[in-house]
């Protein structure tokens, strides 16, 4: 006998309980586009704002140069490690560009470029990766949260901060960045759920760059797209070409506007590609072929924008040269900053554990001080 055959198991014998819950909305408006949204190379490019696009171009070129310089610094031993964003510059830069001064950015460890594009000094942005301290800047001063190494754990922070700002009546939007691998973490789900329930002014930007270190997206999720995950939480999901800075800027701006006007959070999946390895310590040839990497080169964010803007007469040789010169100046200043040996004070180890040092830490600090003095005398 199966359960269905048990007496009284049939639906007709079961009293219908009064509904305690009903779906509140039609899910259709929340669903992402079937294909990543694009502007460059489409009719939508007719609407481009030339001044904005010239700025985007300069930022992209600067961003690429930043990536190259940081990678070079790892080879010189000036940086302990660098997770490159070559190929992903459009996501990083658009994320920084759409925020107002009072807004907050919540970057992951890979998003130093977004922090730099927001105006942070590159040396301060790279302090964590250089290894002289964990966070090289005052988060409140720049409204950039510390770079988060544990995956997706910064997303609930963004939700809490945005929620707190709204409770205080402040006009603040939080934009939180996470990678495709990070969407598998519990904190990603909890953050999206809290944000949607609280209607917090948050924008979640997933940079789907194809791999979580070596694991491809197909082994990360069975969802049609990562943007689809939004629907289950009751927020719109947007799928966008992460190498198309015009599309990125438009979609992110729209999400920020929505958040600012009380419309609640948005989940954006930017489809992009990590052209280099996970970090300089990783060997990408073990998990992907050259052909795939080559194919993405034609879809490079700088190539896409440069082609569009030169064809439309928005950008000329002089503009390209100016952008490159600006990027070189940034690289030179970054080199100078990184070549200066950082000043590290061992006593800082004990200075910022508690507001007031415990007896235990005072004891240990005294021990270290004595060791240092003995070293000095030796």
């Amino acid at each position: 006998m199966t359960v269905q055959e048990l007496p009284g198991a049939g639906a007709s014998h079961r009293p219908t309980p009064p509904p305690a819950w009903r779906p509140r909305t039609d899910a259709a408006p929340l669903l992402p586009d079937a294909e990543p949204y694009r502007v460059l190379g489409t009719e939508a490019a007719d609407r481009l704002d030339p001044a904005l696009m010239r700025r985007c171009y300069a930022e992209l070129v600067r961003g690429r140069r930043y990536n190259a310089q940081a990678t070079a610094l790892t080879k010189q031993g000036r940086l302990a490690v660098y997770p490159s964003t070559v190929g992903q510059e459009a996501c990083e830069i658009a994320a920084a560009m759409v925020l107002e001064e009072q807004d907050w950015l919540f970057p992951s460890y890979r998003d130093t470029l977004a922090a730099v594009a927001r105006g942070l000094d590159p040396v301060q942005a790279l302090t964590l990766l250089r290894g002289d301290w964990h966070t090289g800047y005052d988060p409140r001063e720049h409204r950039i949260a510390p770079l988060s190494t544990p995956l997706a754990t910064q997303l609930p922070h963004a939700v809490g901060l945005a929620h707190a700002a709204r409770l205080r009546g402040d006009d603040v939007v939080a934009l939180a960045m996470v990678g495709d691998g990070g969407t598998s973490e519990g904190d990603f789900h909890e953050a999206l759920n809290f944000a949607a329930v609280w209607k917090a002014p948050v924008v979640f930007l997933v940079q789907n760059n194809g791999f979580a270190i070596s694991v491809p997206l197909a082994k990360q999720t069975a969802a049609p797209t990562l943007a689809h995950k939004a629907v289950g939480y009751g927020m719109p999901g947007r799928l966008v070409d992460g190498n198309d800075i015009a599309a990125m800027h438009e979609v992110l701006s729209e999400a920020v506007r929505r958040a600012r006007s009380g419309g609640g959070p948005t989940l954006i999946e930017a489809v992009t590609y990590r052209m280099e390895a996970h970090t300089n310590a990783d060997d990408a040839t073990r998990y992907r072929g050259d052909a795939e990497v080559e194919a993405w080169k034609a879809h490079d964010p700088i190539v896409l924008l440069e082609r569009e803007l030169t064809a439309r007469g928005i950008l000329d040789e002089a503009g390209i040269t100016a952008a490159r010169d600006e990027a070189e100046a940034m690289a030179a200043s970054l080199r100078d900053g990184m070549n200066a040996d950082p000043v590290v004070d061992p006593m800082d180890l004990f200075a910022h554990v508690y507001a007031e040092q415990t007896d235990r830490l005072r004891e240990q600090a005294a021990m270290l001080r004595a060791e240092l003095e003995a070293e000095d005398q030796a």
Partner: protein
Amino acid sequence: MAQALTRAMRDAMAEDPTVHVMGEDVGTLGGVFRITDGLAKEFGEDRCTDTPLAEAGILGTAVGMAMYGLRPVVEMQFDAFAYPAFEQLISHVAKMRNRTRGAMPLPITIRVPYGGGIGGVEHHCDSSEAYYVATPGLTVVTPATVEDAYGLLRASIASDDPVVFLEPKRLYWSKADWSPQAPAAVPGIGKALVRRTGTSATLITYGPSLPVCLEAAEAAREEGWDLEVVDLRSLVPFDEETVVASVRRTGRAVVVHEAGGFGGPGAEIAARVTERCFHHLEAPVLRVTGFDIPYPPPMLEKHHLPGVERILDAVARLQWEN
């Protein structure tokens, strides 16, 4: 004690508009132990918020709120329900001040009802203090008296550092002639108190084991032992001076707690006492703790929890003659 805790949050919220209470069931229901009873009604749901059921999310969003200048008071319904929040606790809550060189302290109070003795089924009775005290950056306090429940919670909420506030569940219903006092009236965080003076040996304890130790001290009088009882009140910072002074006076010490003995706070305390009091000790420092087992089912918990008999046995073993 429950009312003292409620009163502490109410007074803090009334004095400081940045204090926000949040957690599962803390609003309309007033918490499963009713510790937040009436707060949502008095201060509104924005100040006392029923969150979705997700501990990492509760603590993670509290981090963001604290980053923006609020003082969240988070309730983790039961000891073992706090574990999903451990990554937030350890990677962010405990480290944010340090990561940012003091630029971004997180004044979050994390209330954790802990310990057994209430007949709860599994996952409702863990003594999880060893996890917290092993994490630098966290302050860990636990009241054992009604007065401390109020005073320590006020001090925790006022602290600029994150505080894990361990509430002994079985003392929620303990009563005392008590009227709320200014936090200054009772010693704040980091100070242990001698709850009973004695000359024969020191019982070092905290939270749910304090009443048990006081009872044991009374019973020991019949054996001719005059026991001193030290209530730590705060595990981090640890008030070594009060403990050491007491043991130097009495020459003998037993550490008593519900948490398992291996790697438990008692191991650290016994080591510290031995280091500082070696020449004053008449016997090895002993520990009376819960067994090193997962918390037992309610019908067996009486065998696990350190009781008066086990403490008296340890005291008898202190008559060390080699």
